[in-house]
């Protein structure tokens, strides 16, 4: 039960405006963030997470302003950002660092509750049997699931994911998204996930936010995401395979849709 409020957020890097006056509010939903590379998706997620500060505007979680990194916001990265040389279990356990002192964490004197939580999180993402394995020996999909487990161990009320499946093959991508959705549901957390694959987005998303050139282009519920919106978001790209899922919502059959694009 948590509410993320993003209000008039603008972020500039020198002369470049990465985000311009973006506002929305999400509450206990699985929200997908869509947009081209450079549209400002990563910047938005980093502003919410506290890895960067917005130039103007505010981000609040349950009415509290978010400043700096904090355990209530879990982050899942495209490149996993795990500590590769150690086991999946220890990586999941790093999610509890904020609750643990330096000495305790170095000698792994975490609370029994935290250790259990780490293993339970790994169970949620289907990796309990592999908990002892070194992350560097795991596949990309497994590594990303460890990333999800780490975020869950933080016991967050909001999970952010920055293109979590961009570096994975289609099968692993679907797996990872399935586990992410399951984790969000089981732990009752709000999720904001940026994605490139429109198919996957349409399959898993409950609500869709589109960013274009740093501005909010659309904010629609499941079923309202039309090929027209996608075209507007990405420009005329032929290979955006939205048709399969959304043809039923569209007036035109998908083949005609393609032809219109070509013309």
């Amino acid at each position, binding site marked *: 039960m948590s509410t993320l409020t993003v209000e008039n957020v603008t972020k500039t890097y020198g002369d470049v405006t990465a985000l311009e006056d973006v506002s929305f509010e999400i509450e206990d939903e699985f929200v997908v963030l869509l947009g081209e590379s450079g549209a400002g998706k990563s910047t938005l997620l980093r502003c919410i997470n506290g890895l960067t500060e917005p130039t103007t505007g505010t981000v609040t979680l349950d009415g509290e302003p978010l400043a700096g*990194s904090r355990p209530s916001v879990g*982050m899942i990265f495209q490149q996993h*950002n795990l500590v590769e040389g150690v086991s999946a279990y220890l990586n999941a356990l790093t999610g509890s*660092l904020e609750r643990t002192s330096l000495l305790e*964490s170095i000698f792994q004197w975490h609370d029994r509750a935290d250790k259990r939580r780490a293993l339970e999180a790994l169970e949620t993402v289907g990796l309990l049997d592999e908990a002892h394995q070194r992350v560097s020996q795991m596949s990309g999909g497994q590594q990303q699931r460890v990333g999800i487990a780490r975020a869950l161990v933080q016991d967050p009320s909001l999970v952010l994911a920055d293109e979590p499946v961009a570096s994975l093959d289609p099968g692993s991508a679907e797996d990872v998204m399935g586990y992410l959705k399951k984790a969000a549901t089981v732990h009752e957390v709000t999720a904001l996930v940026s994605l490139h694959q429109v198919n996957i987005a349409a399959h898993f998303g409950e609500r869709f936010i589109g960013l274009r050139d740093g501005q909010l282009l659309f904010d629609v519920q499941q079923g309202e995401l039309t090929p027209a919106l996608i075209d507007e978001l990405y420009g005329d790209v032929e290979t955006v395979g939205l048709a399969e899922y959304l043809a039923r919502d569209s007036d035109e059959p998908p083949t005609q849709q393609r032809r219109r694009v070509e013309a």
Partner: protein
Amino acid sequence: MSSESSSRGDRLREYLGLADVGETSVDRKLTDLKRRKTVRRFWTALGIVAVALLLNFSLRTVGFSLVELITQFPFFLDALPEYFPPTTYYGLPFLDVMQYWSFIIEQNLLLSLEGGRWLAGDINIVWGATFVTLAIAFAGTVLGLPGALLFGVMASERVVPYPFNFLFRATMSLIRAIPALVWVLILIPLGGVSPFTATLAIIIDTTGYLGRLFTDELEEIADGPIEGIRSTGANKPQVVSFGMLSQVFRQFIAWIAFDLEHNVRVAISLGLIGAGGLGLELDIQRKTFNYTEMMACIILIVLLAGSVELLSQRVRSYLRGEDEVEKTGVLEAFFTSPRKIIESAAGRRR
């Protein structure tokens, strides 16, 4: 007659590029090139003369004399059987290894046991010079490690912000500017010329060198895991330990193995100026003209340095993955050890 000599003079001037050979642009360029060549030859000749003068001066200063080399050579040949005492095994001439061995046992260069009753546990191991050298290197490495870790981590720009990390970098540079041999001389008031002082010198040396290797290793870590740990809300020391140090843990262990190998070689050279161990034994035998015994020391040194290097390199290649560390062959490790001892003594590393 005079016209002939003047034409010869003209040709010489032409050859040197001092006279024009013609008026076309090609001719002028030809003259230009000849002049450049003349200038180059002039400087070359000057250089040769300078080197010859300097060499002459140097040879006079060191009293270099071919005559002496020739008259002394028979003495060197006489010394060779002392270095490598010959004997015969089953009628075949061979190196008398037993002479070395009896000296090594007599002087207790390896180790010996005292006290007779094994079963009662009443046994004392007396460690010889080889192990003294090894102990100097090991104690120096272990006690230098905390300093190396502190300075190495603090010198990284990612841990300590820019102007302040240079304080730690500069300290390590200062330490490295002075070879371990000189550190012993500086530290003599603390413990005399002894294994203790040698250990102190190696502790300081390790802080400077190993710390620098740690810093270099930290420069190459990836940003991803750091950001990943930061996103969990971890504090700064935790980000450093889990995001940064955990990435280089294996590499650090590998560098420690390398530094131990280096320190064994340094410990040998420190013995040569009297600070104990095999080096000291070698120096004593040299000063008393016991060439067979001196060679026994040298052989032990080569064996010790070679074995430690082999061990350390195997550890490193295991830790780093097969491809990154070139493995030294067994023979190569022993053959190259004298050169490496000298390089380590001079503060160079490879």
